């Protein structure tokens, strides 16, 4: 009986693993099957041109550049907001502080809000401020979207910092401001994970940039110009009735996947190298 139990649950676990791996493989297969034929150098080096409303000539450089600008801008802005919050609730506030718990609860709630709501909220905000759909608007909306992720994933690591470590630095006569450096070093793996998670979410999200960043065929040259993004490129091209354009959507999906993969691998490589040398 106990052996049967063991076998039964082990099978369930293996099955679950295969479902996940299988769906990933199937998605990759679909993307590769339809995207690869449409893939060529033009796709990543040129902006769209000519024909079929959103174009079957040229490439998607506008969307690639737009997505990268938005993700980089939003991540930097998000870190500027979230790191001080994490430091404040973990170092300055006492362990069971009401304010800290409220902050955690609100970022949990914000975490679960669908991205279209952020898009709509960002849009309302922009209308109020008199900003039109632009790169800046997109960055703002995506920042709102990823800040809770950044806060929560860094906070989870920061909560694990042993009290002894803080006490050790404090007992050397450091002020709380001076121990921030120590704390940041201690949570640096958490910061890397947080950035990876939020970049993944930010670059793949279509709804938050739909109203806020707009869509354009050209590469934005200033914050006030509209910007195209890869998820929206997929969305618009996939809704076209023309198969050639649909295939270009799959190519866009392929580019998106590759970008995420490259970013993850680089981040992992550098965080490992960093932790080997410094920590």
């Amino acid at each position, binding site marked *: 009986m106990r052996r049967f139990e063991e076998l039964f649950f082990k099978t369930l676990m293996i099955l679950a693993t295969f479902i996940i791996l299988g769906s990933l493989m199937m998605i990759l297969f679909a993307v590769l099957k339809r995207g690869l034929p449409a893939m060529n150098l033009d796709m990543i080096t040129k902006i769209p041109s000519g024909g079929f409303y959103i174009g079957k000539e040229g490439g998607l450089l506008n969307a690639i550049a737009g997505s990268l600008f938005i993700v980089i801008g939003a991540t930097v802005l998000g870190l500027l907001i979230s790191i001080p919050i994490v430091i404040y609730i973990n170092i300055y506030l006492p362990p*069971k*502080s009401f304010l800290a718990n409220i902050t955690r609860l609100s970022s949990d709630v914000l975490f679960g809000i669908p991205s279209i709501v952020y898009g709509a909220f960002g849009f309302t905000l922009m209308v109020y401020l008199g900003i039109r759909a632009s790169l800046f608007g997109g960055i703002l909306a995506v920042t709102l979207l990823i800040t809770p992720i950044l806060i929560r994933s860094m906070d989870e690591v920061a909560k694990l910092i042993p009290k*002894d470590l803080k006490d*050790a630095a404090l007992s*050397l006569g450091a002020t709380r401001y001076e121990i921030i450096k*120590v704390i940041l070093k201690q949570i640096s793996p958490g910061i890397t994970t947080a950035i990876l998670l939020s970049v993944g979410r930010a670059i793949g999200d279509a709804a938050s940039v739909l109203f806020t960043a707009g869509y354009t065929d050209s590469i934005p040259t200033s914050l006030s110009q509209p910007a195209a993004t890869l998820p929206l490129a997929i969305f618009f091209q996939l809704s076209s009735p023309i198969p050639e354009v649909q295939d270009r959507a799959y190519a866009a999906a392929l580019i998106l996947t590759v970008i995420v993969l490259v970013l993850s691998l680089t981040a992992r490589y550098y965080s490992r190298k960093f932790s080997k040398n*410094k*920590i």
Partner: protein
Amino acid sequence: MSLSLVIPEKNMRYPSEDINESTILTIVNNERKKVVPSSSTILNPLISVRNLNVFIQKNHILKNVNLDLPNKAITCIIGPSGCGKTTLLKTFNRLLENSSEIKITGEVLVDGENIHDRNIDVTHIRKKMGLLSQRPCPLPMSIYDNIAYGPKIHGIRNKRKLDVIVKKYLSAAGLWEEVKDRLNAPANRLSIGQQQRLCLARGLAVEPQVILGDEATSSLDPISSKTIEELFVHLKEDYSIALVTHTLRQAQRIADHIVFMYLGEVVESGPAAEVFNNPKEKLTREYLSGYFS
């Protein structure tokens, strides 16, 4: 008050058995000769505690503690778990205040300064006391930076000066020879015993007057513990050392002065030889003989 100088032949090993409490006691031994004043008459105490009460969330943790800790000597604070030893230690360098719902009344004078005085900067108090915690806790940086961290935050930027400091205190902690070739290696790669000595060196590098040890050897292997103990004995020439310890044997080996606490009160304090050989209180006697622990 009688002042008796006791050097009887037959009482060589337990000279204090028949001495009353206010006696100035002279122990003459084959190896050592020292004059230990009794608890009520410590000359120039470095830390004086007056009517100290500490409440944590309405729990009365320390009850009316009065103490004098001698300068340049090892004081061991002993007592069963939960009697407030660590709380007392953390009151000394004001680390306790970082926990929530703390109320402290009474005075703690360190070197004549009331540490809870509003005009005193808390970092000034902490700089005076190196803390060695139960488990070694190296900062997440290199061996070199661990030692240099303290001096740096207190304003020493000169690389050459820092080099000298790092070498000096790593040597003081008996670690220099072991790590001099890998000063830039991460500190957490050291063995646990080495880490504890690193933490000691790090504490010494800010030039404190007092070393506080919170069961500083309890997570170490016997050989590392012995090294640390020997370091303490060596360091007491320049520093005052206050150790919380669970091991009576350790207290017997290295203490000059003993503070016995029970349920938040100081039951007895006095020179080690006196307390160990002739405890005045019944509770102390029972604790020392292992009735409870």
